[in-house]
């Protein structure tokens, strides 16, 4: 009897030890990792991997973003950069301490490079995602975006951005799941908003990235800006019934530019290589080719030059009118020394069709490529860069 009692005691010890050990083993995995949120001074945090956003949250985002009338009343007295600073601060002031800590990072090239043409679930972004914002916070963000993007042009500027978010909602239903949708788009503010210092607004998600880098009197940069869309067919905003085809105008403009050329000009413009994607995508920064390829725009007739300019406009004119005008003036003055090149077909309808506009400053690539969620139908990836003002000139 005594024996079995002590044996039972030892068994109990064994069991106790076993459970004690289990705690130790579980602890390291579930405890908070070494990387915490970026303090206003550090900004070196590792990006969190997105666990996905429900389609309801994404539909709420696009519904709330559909109103383009600014509700901001405190910044109306300012214009230009001062107005952007005011609206950015107004947005930041709506965030709670934790959100602000996540949304605002120090300005650095590494933080500015944290964009991709993949959904945030597959390539993590910094900042706060739109699904995590309250209606008030989202309105403050929207007030900022309607100020820095062009308004009231279908599928351009703010409308193009919104159409892109709506299309990403469609990808949720097309089999993409919670990795896709407007709620998975991120906004981060790098540095401290000011009219004199270096800082950036970075809005980035799956098929849309638009940075705004400001450096006071040293100038501003609005690239690298990524534009893509899937599906390429017409998508509808469930909140308003509004239809979008956010990149169709660009595709048509490139086709017009290429088919407008004589066959001799087409031969000069045609690249022998094949491009299954854009060359200067995310991560390929400051790698502009030394030698420009293709056809010099200055050697074309005025009407053909105009077609090139029309294509460029569809990128530059996404920005607010004042900003767009100054950028466009520079690109227009450099138009003669700008080159256009293409690969694939001139109608821009097939997979691996590719167009490049390479100027002294402007760099635009457009690639029609195979999709992952929607198979057997090509979709565009496109990037607008600037040889001097990418990332506001930060190298």
């Amino acid at each position, binding site marked *: 009897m005594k*024996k079995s009692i*002590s*044996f039972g005691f*030892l068994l109990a*010890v*064994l069991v106790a*030890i*076993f459970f004690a*050990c289990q705690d*130790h*083993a579980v*602890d*390291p995995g579930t405890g908070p990792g070494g990387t915490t949120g970026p303090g206003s001074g550090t900004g070196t945090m590792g990006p969190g991997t997105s666990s996905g956003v429900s389609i309801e949250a994404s539909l709420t985002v696009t519904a709330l973003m559909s109103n383009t009338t600014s509700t901001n009343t405190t910044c109306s007295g300012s214009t230009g950069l001062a107005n952007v600073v005011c609206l950015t601060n107004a947005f930041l002031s709506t965030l709670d301490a934790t959100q602000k800590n996540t949304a605002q990072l120090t300005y650095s090239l590494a933080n500015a490079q944290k964009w991709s043409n*993949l959904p945030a679930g*597959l390539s993590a972004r910094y900042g706060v995602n739109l699904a995590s914002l309250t209606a008030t916070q989202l309105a403050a963000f929207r007030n900022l975006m309607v100020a820095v993007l062009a308004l009231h042009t279908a599928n351009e500027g703010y409308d193009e951005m919104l159409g892109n978010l709506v299309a990403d909602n469609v990808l949720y239903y097309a089999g993409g799941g919670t990795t896709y949708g407007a709620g998975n788009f991120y906004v981060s503010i790098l540095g401290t908003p000011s009219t004199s210092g270096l800082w950036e607004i970075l809005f980035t998600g799956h098929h849309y990235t638009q940075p705004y880098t400001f450096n006071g009197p040293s100038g501003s940069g609005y690239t690298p800006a990524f534009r893509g869309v899937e599906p390429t067919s017409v998508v509808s905003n469930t909140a308003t019934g509004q239809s979008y085809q956010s990149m169709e105008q660009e595709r048509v403009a490139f086709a017009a530019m290429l088919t407008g050329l004589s066959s001799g000009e087409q031969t000069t413009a045609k690249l022998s*290589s*094949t*491009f*299954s*994607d*854009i*060359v*200067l995508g995310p991560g*390929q920064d400051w*790698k*502009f*080719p*030394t*030698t420009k*390829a293709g056809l010099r725009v200055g050697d074309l007739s005025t009407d053909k030059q105009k077609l090139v300019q029309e294509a460029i406009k569809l990128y530059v004119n996404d920005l607010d009118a004042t900003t767009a005008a100054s950028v466009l003036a520079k690109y227009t003055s450099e138009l003669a020394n700008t080159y256009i090149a293409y690969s694939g077909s001139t109608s821009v309808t097939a997979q*691996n069709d590719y167009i490049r506009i390479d100027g002294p400053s402007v760099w635009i690539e457009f*690639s029609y490529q*195979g999709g*992952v*969620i929607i198979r057997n139908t090509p979709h565009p990836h496109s990037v607008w860069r600037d040889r001097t003002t990418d990332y506001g000139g930060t190298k």
Partner: protein
Amino acid sequence: MKQLFFPVSRPIGWLMVFLISLLATLLPDVAFAHPMPNSVVLLNVHANRIEAEIQIPLVELQAAYGHAVNDSSAGLIERLGPQLRAYLIQHIRPQTPDGRPWNVSISELAVQETQNPINGVYRELTAQAQLVPPVGADVRQFIFYYDVVLHQVVTHKILVSVRQDWARGQIADDQPVQVGIISLDIVNNRILPLNVNLESGSTWTGFQSMLKLGMRHIAEGTDHLLFLLVLLLPAPLLVHGGTVRRFSWGSFGGVRYSLIHLLQIVTAFTVGHSITLLAGSLGWVRLPSQPVEILIAVSILVSAVHALRPLFPGREAWVAAGFGLVHGLAFASTLANLQLDAGPMALSILGFNLGIELMQLVVIGLTVPWLILLSRTSAYRYVRIAGAVLASIAAVAWVIERITGQSNILTKSVEQVAGYAPYVLVVLALLALFFTRRMKQANV
């Protein structure tokens, strides 16, 4: 292995620390996600040649090579095998640093479907290429001119990694080590070759790594260990019964009896698995792994039942040798998969087997003294029965897992519990000491 240790007797403590840290250093560290739409070149470095596996996404190959290789990929190898080989040889051109070309040949070609989170499901062409340097040239240093697909599709990228390098102690079980990426030099619009400069290896490094692999195989091979331990459980005991009534386990048979018995069993197991390890590694015997794995689980069940009630008293050594043959086949599959040349293979078999024996000895050395101590006490009955019952449950769970091909709750918990083996050992030692002391007190 991050758990804290309770204070235990010093030599054992240090031994356990040694074992645990050995395990920790052998665990693979970085996950290698198969990237796409890139090509992947995996190098298997031998003494005088490189076997390369090349994976080319068909969608990209079609853009470069045409022939609708992606759109009509069914029967592709039958349709275009010779042309594809010629194309590959034209675009895979390793050279010595002084510009002499290597010999390249392509053996197997296959089309397979693969997938990753970014690109979803896609089909790729896999090619096995043999890259042989000119006589006298170093296999570890070459200029890798490679532009399959890339010569035409300039957005394509080729990831080159070493998957196996025996002389550097790297085997295919480990994560591939990236050597570099071949892609367009965008700024200068050119394709540069990749300079491959692998650190030199040695026979000794290769041998050592195989020794470690053998040790790891036993340390991580819960099933092999469990078989041996359960077979050893009743080894110190005498057998009662025989012609008239059923056999049953009796009392302690003495230290000398126990040690001889143990030695016989362990030696028999070693002889058994060494035979099939050799035969299997050299390719003389090759059995599909599933039945082998199922048989191993059955072997645990048999020895567990034997520990409950003698099934084959006095013939444990023969059973150990017989099942040793089965376990050896599983060991052999590890080596056979490395596809080494004769020299390294011979050394690998030797090193791997030595590693297995070493780890086996360590485990036996740590366990058996306590088993012998315990077997002298009346409490051993419970330890033996508890051990045998737990092992039977694990064995049955493994049989089910290996037949269905799906892990179950039991096998998962066995793997978890195996992580706490040092604690179980500590408990065994405490039990042994406790009951020995009580027995001595009772005798006084």
